[in-house]
């Protein structure tokens, strides 16, 4: 294209070419060249969500009795399809920034899907944070973790917070934001920082009647 443009000696010709090129360019189909829906856009979104989650750990407080002893590690589980990539993204931030949960080292796990009710307690027994990917949105209501104390339950998509999770990480209007369910926090014996709730540009507070 560059060489073509350089051949134009006449400005008007160049402009006609530019107009034609732009029109052609804009009508290029969205699905051409074998582009897949996942890939780079999804990875970009994952990075935003991981950054949010890393911040969120800082703004949440656990009751000491709900955490293992101070010299133990606490678990953070990523649940859903593609959980391993997101878990790696998260692990990088946790290692890089030396993120802890109230002084305890964080161990990251992944899990392919929400376990059945009888398995659930055993599977998540050392986890203080469970992050549900969007693939688990439909099964979330079956998860009895909703009631377990000391587990910060976070999900991708607004339905998680609406159905009892502490926080939803939501993509809306080309932005990523938080939907916080204060009841979700209190019912799990967790506290959320008022500083976080004051960040109106980043946080929306879920109200049952709203």
């Amino acid at each position, binding site marked *: *294209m*560059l060489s073509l*443009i*350089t051949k134009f000696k006449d400005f008007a010709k*160049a*402009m006609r070419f*530019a107009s034609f090129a*732009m029109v052609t*360019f*804009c009508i*290029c*189909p*969205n*699905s*051409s*060249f074998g*582009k897949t*829906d996942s890939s*780079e856009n999804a*990875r*970009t979104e994952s*990075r*935003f969500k991981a*950054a*949010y989650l*890393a*911040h969120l750990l800082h703004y949440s407080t656990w009751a000491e009795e709900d955490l293992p002893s101070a010299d133990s590690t606490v*678990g953070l589980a990523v649940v859903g399809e593609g959980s*391993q990539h997101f*878990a*790696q*993204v998260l*692990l*990088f*931030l946790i*290692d*890089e920034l030396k993120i802890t949960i109230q002084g305890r080292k964080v*161990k*990251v796990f*992944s*899990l*392919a*899907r929400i*376990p*059945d009710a009888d*398995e659930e307690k055993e*599977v*998540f027994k050392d986890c203080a944070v469970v992050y549900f990917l969007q693939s688990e949105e439909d099964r979330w209501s079956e998860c009895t973790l909703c009631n377990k104390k000391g587990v910060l339950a976070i999900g991708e998509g607004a339905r998680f917070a609406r159905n009892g999770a502490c926080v939803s990480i939501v993509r809306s*209007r*080309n*932005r*990523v*934001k938080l939907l916080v369910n204060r009841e979700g926090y209190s019912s799990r014996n967790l506290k959320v920082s008022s500083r*976080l709730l004051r*960040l*109106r*540009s*980043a*946080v*929306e507070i879920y109200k049952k009647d709203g």
Partner: protein
Amino acid sequence: MVLLAFLLAVLSFGQTLGGAEANGTLPKLSLVPIESNEDALTPFEKTELRRLFGLGLRDLARRPVRGVLGYEQEYWRNPASVHVLRPDDISLNGHLLTVEALRGVPGMHVTRGTGYDDFAIMRNFSGSSTEKFLAMVDGREVLQIMGGTVNATAEGVPLEILDRVEIIRGPGASIWGTNAVSGVYNIVTKSAAATQGDSVRLVIRDDGTFLGDYVHGGQAGEDGSYRVWFRDQEYAEGTLNSGLPAKDDGYFRKAGFRYDKTFSNNLDFTFSGAFGERRVHHVLDLSQRLYYNNAAGTLGASPLVPIANLPLHIPSTWPVSRAPELSVPAGFTRYEYWGEMPHDAGHLRAKISGVTDSDLEWSLAGYVEQYKTFLGHVGHRWKRDEYDIDFRANKPLGDSHHLAFGLAVRHMDFEVEDVVTPPWNFPIIDTISGTSIPSSMVPASVPILNYGENPTNFDRFSAFFQDSYEFSDGLMLSAGAKLEESDLAGSGVQPGARLSWALNDYNVLWSAYSRAYRTPSLVERYTQVSYARIWVPTDPADPLNPAKGFWMNQSFPGNSSLEKEETDAFEVGWRSQPWIDFTVELSLYHYNTSNAIFSGPPIYEAHDVKTSGGELIFDYRPFRYWTLKGGTSRSISKKEGIETDNFPKTLANLSSHIRLRDDLTFAQNFYYAASRTIPSAYNPIFIPAHLRMDLGFVWRPDESLEVGFFGRDLLDPHHSENMYQDLELEPARVERSFLLSITKRF
């Protein structure tokens, strides 16, 4: 060859690493512990994660997931040569002002004139006008159209409110528009919510120059926040090259405010403004502005002899401004006139922005500005009232397209007044500009600058459209054009196309073509400059008798027929990050400029100029406690086929920071500029190559306190860098200095 071999080595290294991807399988219904895997994420991804986390939640929420290519796209995929300065680049390197930190941007040449003037130029390609790039503060253009320069010192903001300075090397015309020729720099300030509380920054230099900033921020209602700030800068008097006082002492005071309100989750309002006044003096060296017409050869071979050697001819108004008996340059007595150079400016900015349910992101901004100044030393006064409205929007379309478009209107009103300054106030015979032909034989007083009855109202309308198209995850093309209709630049289309290609997880190639315009300044276009006067003896038998002759004016006119400068710019770049702590970037460019404007008697001339060059930049952290950043650039410019020498052909900088303890950093900075010549109609001045070394320590015991101590220009006691060409005869010294800075947050 070495560079090529290095490039190939890094490319192949990237391909080797790229093959090793994490691919574990998930056992069903049991937690899989995730172990740290170096290859699970690419270095670009890791860097991006660091950056996103570093933004903080408030800024993270404002950042679009899919940005506009070449504008707010993730750094590593950006098909442009982009550099971002952060507040740490200023405070950790011992810079007083933001403009000084541009010394650390490869490809930029920052020079000091007098104590209050820093000039920044980028990718030299034409002429002697100081700035041919677009400078903005929060989107507001701050390029002074009168002289085509940026008053960078006066446009500075307190470090505490500075978020970043985005520098884009090369034209970004399709989005930024006119004057974004050799590049763009945009100072972005923090939101009011990000500067809550109080902070004070005090900086004092050993010569007495002082800078004090105070910032206060607070809440205004549930969804609003505000800040106010004040700056006081006192300039100590410097010294000219000759050792004479530069008379550049004075002060600059500025106050500003910002109010931000979030009306709903998706509608933001900002109202901000700043008002500043500067009181300084500026010297006009008169020594070589009066000449003796030596056509008869009475005083040797030279047809014109500076009158400074002939005191009898010095007008009676002059002795009061005569400098001490020092000779500048050798053999001439210096006569000078200095006048006040007040500067009063203020602006208001209002912006409302939002995102619709369909991801259409939009903003509407309005700016009002008034700028008043008086160049007392040459008697040129002007006032500018400016009004701007700017609408921008962008929207992702499907998975592959991202549209950006906008409209803007600008109106400027000037009031210009030229007065005859005291030393110039004696009768002369005026001439037809650009010639030695008398226009009238009646003696008159003529000001140095004369804007005359030329136009003073200017409008500009512009619109841009850009689409970015992702062919695949690694290949993206952005194309667009800016259309402008302007009283100064006429109408025109500035198209641009940028291509970004991720070769693999470690290497990105990009290329770009842009056509960009630069508007001639009002001085270049409309102002007559009376630069010298010549004593013409009337009695050949008694040629040196001051009573037997008359003064004749020499002037050159502005050139109202000057077309806009048009640049076709071709760029290619390679960006590589083989591992997270090492990034290297190479950018190459070729500019083909027509109608490039060069100032200087007898007229403002337009020439064709070709410029080629490139920058090699690296960012390396060999250990967790040591970071190294730097780069080098090379630029060759040819005016009508002849190499120019008014921009250093080679620039280089190296910045090293060693963390001696968690709270103590040792900073070392080196800046190299090859030789150049300051262009001047009277006395071009050769500036030798110069290497500058700054060393400093920064102590940060906690987040609320920072103390820095720096020695700057430690390798020599002083050197010269710049002056106002065609108005001065010698530059001021840039002297070795020591600087103490204290920042306290409450």
